[in-house]
């Protein structure tokens, strides 16, 4: 997973010209459900994967600058249900200039998966490392974020509601706290962040509800993501309030990779102006390199609640 702090930094930081969020997240499996990697809200599992690149374009952030960000994220599993992510990337703003984002890391633990209910969740701890940004992205302190991610597929609905069974929701909640409230003369806020996705999986529809003959359509997952950030402490004057984005789009889910494209619609002027775009290419290392790079370092899982099933 990549960067809740950047997510919050970006959302809260639109007012400070920090730019749009550009995270890239993991995919995961629980029971019959494959939760694809989503672009804004992290998915609820842990896996070996690489998101490269994730490209975000915003016509006008809240400072009035155009912005293009290119980031990548790599997640390595230590245990099958515990992974460490590294993420970084660049930002170009006009006006504003160029710079690398601060390095972002997250340790994430998938602590439950109830297969028959396609219900899973993870907790993580994310650190955005202050002082590692450059150029226009330099000058921020460490940010610390405890994160909760959950996902629920609706495959356990009765068959009389068969058409609803391909739906799934995922959600994320976290707080992002700066290590120092004031850094290089700038004020950094603590933020409360939350968001969710609503997905309709045509691969699930094809395998569980009715066969789809078209090879392209049966790999699509239409999706909408929503994310909000609210300053809760130490916000600079004029930056209190809630920012966020609504991101409708579609994911093409192949066997060992996926590609996603979403519109980025700011919810208010403090979140930016105009409709942006985010796209991502994502590789599932557990599927591409199952016996090397995509394999957990230790084979034994950490404790996981499964609702009585393995």
């Amino acid at each position, binding site marked *: 997973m990549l960067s809740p702090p950047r997510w919050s930094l970006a959302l809260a930081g639109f007012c400070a010209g920090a730019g749009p969020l550009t995270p890239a997240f993991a995919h995961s499996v629980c*029971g019959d459900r494959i939760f694809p990697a989503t672009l804004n809200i992290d998915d609820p599992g842990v896996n070996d994967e*690489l998101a490269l690149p994730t490209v975000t374009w915003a016509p006008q952030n809240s400072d009035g600058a155009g912005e293009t960000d290119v980031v*990548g994220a790599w997640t390595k599993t230590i245990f099958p249900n515990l992974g460490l992510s590294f993420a970084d990337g660049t930002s170009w703003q006009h006006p504003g200039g160029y710079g690398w984002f601060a390095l972002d890391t997250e340790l994430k633990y998938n602590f439950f998966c109830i297969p028959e209910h396609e219900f899973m969740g993870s907790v993580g701890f994310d650190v955005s490392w202050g002082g590692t940004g450059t150029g226009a992205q330099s000058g921020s302190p460490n940010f610390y974020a405890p994160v909760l991610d959950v996902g629920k597929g609706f495959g356990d609905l009765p068959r009389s509601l068969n058409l609803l069974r391909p739906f799934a929701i995922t959600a994320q909640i976290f707080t992002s706290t700066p290590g120092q409230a004031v850094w290089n003369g700038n004020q950094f806020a603590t933020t409360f962040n939350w968001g969710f996705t609503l997905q309709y999986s045509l691969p699930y529809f094809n*395998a569980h509800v009715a066969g789809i003959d078209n090879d392209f359509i049966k790999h699509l997952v239409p999706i909408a993501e929503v994310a909000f950030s609210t300053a809760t402490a130490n916000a600079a004057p004029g930056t209190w309030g809630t920012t966020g984005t609504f991101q409708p789009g579609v994911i093409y889910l192949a066997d060992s990779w996926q590609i996603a494209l979403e519109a980025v619609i700011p919810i208010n002027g403090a979140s930016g102006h105009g409709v942006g775009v985010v796209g991502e290419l994502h590789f599932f290392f557990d*599927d591409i390199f199952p016996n090397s790079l995509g394999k957990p370092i230790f084979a034994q899982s950490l404790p996981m609640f499964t609702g009585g099933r393995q």
Partner: protein
Amino acid sequence: MTRVSTITIAASLVFIFASGAAFAHAQLEKATPAVGGTVAPPNEIRLEFSEGVEPKFTKVTLTAPGGAAAPLGAPTAEAGHQNVLIVPIAKSLAPGVYTVHWRAVSVDTHHTQGDFNFTVK
């Protein structure tokens, strides 16, 4: 090492390794009888997955309209197609709605599962 070169190396590794064989979670691509379909009594269930599967470790069950299990033969891979599983149906099926449950283990040991209905007319 600059970050640009780090990213470049990472990207290069991906495409170098990706040029080799790739395996994945076996997803059900197509079934006969069709998922949600209505058919004459079939002699077998044919499951076409996105990846090769291991018949020995793949389990398929068929639940009849009353909830009882319909007898099935042992799953085998279709000749020349490791991703296609054939499961013989031991007895002719009476009309009604049947549920197929499958749990597949792909050749890289990932397991996936699913279920679907079909109707015998």
